[in-house]
């Protein structure tokens, strides 16, 4: 038989336990109200995020120096680094810049690619908190420590900037680069499907519905596209207009024999009919979604991953000025000039960023920089 002392003690203990659990729950942050996925092409840059890992210095030092050096003093850059020494190294090689640099030291391995880690959901109110929607498991994280570290970056940012960011796990797997959003539509690369269908989602239809709910935008899931992240083959520029890469256009700008100083393309350029078809299919699906399509020269390599792309851009739109930070590649002058003229013809001030050291690693400028806040 239970003695009265034991019973009383158990009741008091339970009450104490519940009180402690309630206190812990109060301490846990609740998800703030959020709006839609941040547009790639509307609003002025206010706060950007880059990741810097010293072993990748050769790859990112030129694009970071060019890009950060061209930003104004009203932009803050959160630099996610494995340690303070890495941040100091970046500050040293970037040199004098007008934008404000702010370190977020994470003390764990990471890659240098910020874009794929999360997508920003705009705050529900102007002074609200940005939600960093991230996936629960990075592809290859089990065998790649830096990728496992990347999984924590959203939470690291939210912890460092509690008044401006909140990290929220998505109910599906994605890389940030799988999505390309404007103020109305989010284009989704089909590349995302095999990771989710019959894994986290029962069908394509439920998946599209869940993406639309999570990102609060109309979803255009591309049925056919190059097997890459969306911004490698297209750019969304607002006013229901997209730029889509065109290998044929790229080919027309190449001399009969490729010069020795032309950027390296692993396996050579891929001008196959199948690859051209996939780029054309993107253009045609965007047109079917009532978008005006402008084609831009692009040269994909036969490895299927390395692209000389002029769609992998960052767009900063201010009241009377629209700026594009446009990759260029040393040794590809004709391509660079053609792309620059296309962007200028669309009314953009072009600020060139040297990505010669970057594209061979399957990404470019847009892939290196994520946007936390626009005005």
């Amino acid at each position, binding site marked *: 038989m239970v*003695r009265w*002392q034991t019973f*009383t*003690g158990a009741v*008091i*203990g*339970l009450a*104490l*336990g519940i009180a*402690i*659990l309630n206190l*812990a*729950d109060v301490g*846990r942050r*609740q*998800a703030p109200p959020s709006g839609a996925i941040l547009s790639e092409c509307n609003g002025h840059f206010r706060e950007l995020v880059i990741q810097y890992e010293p*072993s*990748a210095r050769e790859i990112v030092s030129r694009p970071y120096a060019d890009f950060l050096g061209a930003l104004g003093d009203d932009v803050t850059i959160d630099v996610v680094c494995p340690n303070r020494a890495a941040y100091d190294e970046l500050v040293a090689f970037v040199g004098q810049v007008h934008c404000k640099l702010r370190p977020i030291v994470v003390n764990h391995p990471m*890659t240098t*690619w910020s874009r*794929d880690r999360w997508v920003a959901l705009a705050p529900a109110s102007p002074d609200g908190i940005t939600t960093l929607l991230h996936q*629960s498991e990075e*592809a*290859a994280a*089990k*065998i*790649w420590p*830096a990728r496992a570290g990347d999984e924590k970056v959203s939470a690291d940012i939210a912890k460092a900037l509690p008044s401006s960011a909140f*990290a*929220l*796990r*998505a*109910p599906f797997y994605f*890389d940030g*680069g799988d999505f390309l959003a404007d103020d109305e539509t989010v284009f989704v690369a*089909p590349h995302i*499907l*095999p990771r989710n*269908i*019959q*894994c*986290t*989602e*029962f069908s394509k239809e439920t998946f599209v519905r869940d993406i639309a709910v999570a990102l609060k935008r109309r979803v255009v899931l591309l*049925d056919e596209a190059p*097997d890459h*992240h969306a911004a490698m083959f297209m750019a969304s520029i607002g006013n229901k207009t997209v730029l889509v890469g065109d290998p044929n256009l790229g080919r027309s700008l190449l001399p009969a024999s490729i010069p020795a100083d032309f950027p390296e393309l692993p*396996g050579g350029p891929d001008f*196959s009919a199948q690859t051209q*078809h*996939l780029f054309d*299919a993107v253009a045609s699906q965007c047109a079917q979604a009532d978008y005006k399509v402008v084609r831009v020269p692009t040269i994909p390599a*036969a*490895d*299927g*991953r390395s692209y000389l792309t002029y769609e992998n851009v960052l767009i900063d739109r201010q009241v009377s000025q629209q700026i594009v930070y446009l990759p260029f590649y040393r040794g590809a002058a004709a391509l660079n000039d053609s792309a620059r003229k296309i962007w200028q013809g669309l009314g953009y001030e072009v600020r060139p960023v040297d990505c010669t050291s970057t594209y061979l*690693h*399957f*990404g470019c400028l847009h*892939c290196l920089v994520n946007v936390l806040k626009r005005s």
Partner: protein
Amino acid sequence: MNTKDFSIISSVALATATLAVAVFLPNSLDAGNDSAPQQITQPKLVSHGVEFTLAAPNNRTFKTGDEPAFDLNAVNTSGEDAAVDVQISMTSMAPSSRFSRMPAFPQTLWQKSCSVTLKPHETKVISIATATKLPANRTIDVMLQPVNPQDANAVEKPATQTFTKAGGPSAIVAMSFSTISPAQGTNPTLN
């Protein structure tokens, strides 16, 4: 209430509170809006009313040098005869350069197209041998997809290209496994 009673009550209260916090606190911290994705344990391809699933015979696990075999389970859920072509592909992916933005393109190790005919509500299990040795230090996906000659992804790339394409958007990953040892996985290759 004497000192002994007070001592018993305090001890029991402390033990109960500790137990309650230890059991429920981790759940409390994980709960809320931040939910993990659901995981579908048995991926299923549905094509023309036929459900296809894939399994390793006798739950066999595969390692470097093995020649995997699979059981393709086909269930006709409709009340009509069914004839469906399904493609099974086994792709491998090497660890990427540690500087890469994304993993390298997967290479197709083996693929086969199966024509399956089923009576209404009939179930068939088809044994499939790949006769392909698994390479070391790779992650392996086995995919199912409907055979569609119109699918641009089904068109072969020129022979000059050494990289092959993984399954198209209609493919599902039916099985995944790895021949990478944890020690190898900590050192991705360099470009």
